[in-house]
């Protein structure tokens, strides 16, 4: 929803109009409408020990979201810009690198699909390796080795040691 053209709002960059912010206003308004529609479909139940029922809170939130969306839009229209977050590893002067972000999302989505059939050890290793690759790691073997080491350690330490829910998947019986 954001426009790569205006994605250079850094501290150093000149304050430019950041029209992608209207997208945020729209999203907030959409969320407000969603709450109101959903609240309308809730059967209104009140009783002596719950005079309020389940509906008022979502309705109030929905209305407040709509108001906030309008106030936000006015702020943007007046030239308001949210300061993008900096950090040690963040270079706001550069353009957003959508390729890396996209690759990470793909790797992440794939892990969500694979985690149950393949199990944590395989999925976790691939996840680590894939993310490191997406982020520019050039040592593929080393990356995979780290991934396998981490996945095995966490599986034995947490799943078997502490009883955390991690699936064994196809390696069941081997691990």
């Amino acid at each position, binding site marked *: 929803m954001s426009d790569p053209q205006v994605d250079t709002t850094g501290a150093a960059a000149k304050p430019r109009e950041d029209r992608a912010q209207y997208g945020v206003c729209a999203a907030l308004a959409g969320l407000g409408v969603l709450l109101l529609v959903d609240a309308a479909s809730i059967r209104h139940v009140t009783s002596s020990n719950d005079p309020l029922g389940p509906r008022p809170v979502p309705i109030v939130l929905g209305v407040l979201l709509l108001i906030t969306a309008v106030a936000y839009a006015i702020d943007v229209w007046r030239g308001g810009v949210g300061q*993008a977050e900096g950090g040690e590893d963040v270079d706001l002067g550069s353009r957003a690198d959508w390729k890396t972000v996209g690759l990470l999302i793909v790797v992440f989505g794939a892990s969500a699909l694979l985690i149950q059939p393949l199990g944590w050890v395989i999925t976790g290793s691939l*996840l680590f390796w894939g993310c490191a690759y997406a982020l520019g790691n050039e040592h593929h073997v080393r990356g995979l080795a780290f991934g396998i080491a981490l996945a095995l350690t966490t599986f034995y330490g947490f799943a078997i040691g502490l009883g955390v829910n991690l699936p064994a998947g196809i390696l069941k019986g081997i691990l």
Partner: protein
Amino acid sequence: MDNLNHLIEGFGHVLTPMNLLFALIGVTVGTAVGVLPGIGPAMTVALLLPITYGLEPTQALIMFAGIFYGGMYGGSTTSILLNTPGESASVVTALEGNKMAKSGRAAQALATAAIGSFVAGTIGTALLVLVMPQVVAFAINLGSPELLAILLVAFVGASAVLGSSRVRGFAALLVGLTIGVVGIDFVTGQQRLTFGQPMLADGIDVVVVAVGIFAVGEALWVAAHLRRKAATVIPVGRPWMGREDWARSWKPWLRGTALGFPFGAIPAGGAEVPTFLSYLAERRLAKHPEEFGHGAIEGVAGPEAANNASAAGTLVPLLAIGLPTNATAAIMLSALQGWGFEPGPFLIDKQPVLVWTLVASLFVGNTMLLLLNLPLAPTWAKLLQIPRPYLYAGILFFATMGAYAVNAQPFDLFLLLALGLVGFALRRFGLPVLPLIIGVILGPLAEKHGRRSLQLSGGDLSGLIGGPVAWVCYAIIAGVILWPLIGRLLPGKRPSDRDHTPTEASA
């Protein structure tokens, strides 16, 4: 002194090998995540939450508190050596600390930060012991209307007082509150915002929200703007201070503590405001104000003390009322809920061992932190050399593991990704994260107290207003919301003395 007995008993519980081990793990992990970019104490506690459901709650809480305190120590190391603060609480430290490091006084900057943190943390924890029972005595008589009002103060405080834009703060808060609505209504059993999806019926787990917003959001955001060349770390030897440094540091430590503790205890306090105030105070009081901007040690000593004291202050409302004032505390609160405790004024009565062991562990953890950080600062600085692809791949790896472990369903991972994209958008558009997290965790609680108030009054809306405590809260809320209008009506520009947030309502 009943408290003292409890505390001594608490020490007895801490000084078992297992509990000491968890304190050590906590402070070590805390320092590490404080030093590392992209990962902070709040995210770490959230990631560890599902793992700790298998642990003794006391041990897990000791570990979390160690992470919380440790993050404050570690954050200063990056501020001083890299000029880019690891945590928002250390932003001010970078101002003078990095200048000191550049002029060859890194060792003294690190020393005054570590010793100041120790002094402030110890005094702050002692104040916690003194103040907490008073706050409990005050809070124990509060009914639902008052608690609702206090929660509303926390909402408004987190959204409107911190950060530069109020509308953005409120937007984040409302998104958080909306996430909190998802699931089965706790009174009537009706589904809200679940879209017929049974996996949403239990609501969205706080772990998934926190990990998605903090960990996945941060990793995606950094990935989009990754700095290709690493920043230079100033090499440093073992921290030490000379006689003159001690003479110049001790007063700022104490002043920083005095500022940090009360601000940590009020909603919307956090560590940012007191560290900044401490910096301003030290600059005004310094014998050589011209040194400020070129590496004045007072500018490191004061803020570093302030941020650790505020960490101690944060625990007062968390343990006494069940009110978190920053993100890490918010997640610790949901941990308490997850273990089946009801946070609030009764916690200390029902779980004295848990609370006092935790408090005692803070003294122990603080001492461990001094020993870990003073001689080992150069070693910690080496952590900054971790190649960034591995660091962020690791964060995503643990995020996936933590989110999956909550319910063992892949559906949560898609939710995690969606929330990660929300976290990305927050960072991109400069929306604050804290109001969202506060909204998710405290929203359902506020609704519960609101509905209970009306139940007590038989549906009469006046039941929401409650007694004097609630009136004060609503007056504060009105003041904060109307502040810009009042400011506009007043003639001329006044220097912004920040007196609109009254300190503690406890005394």
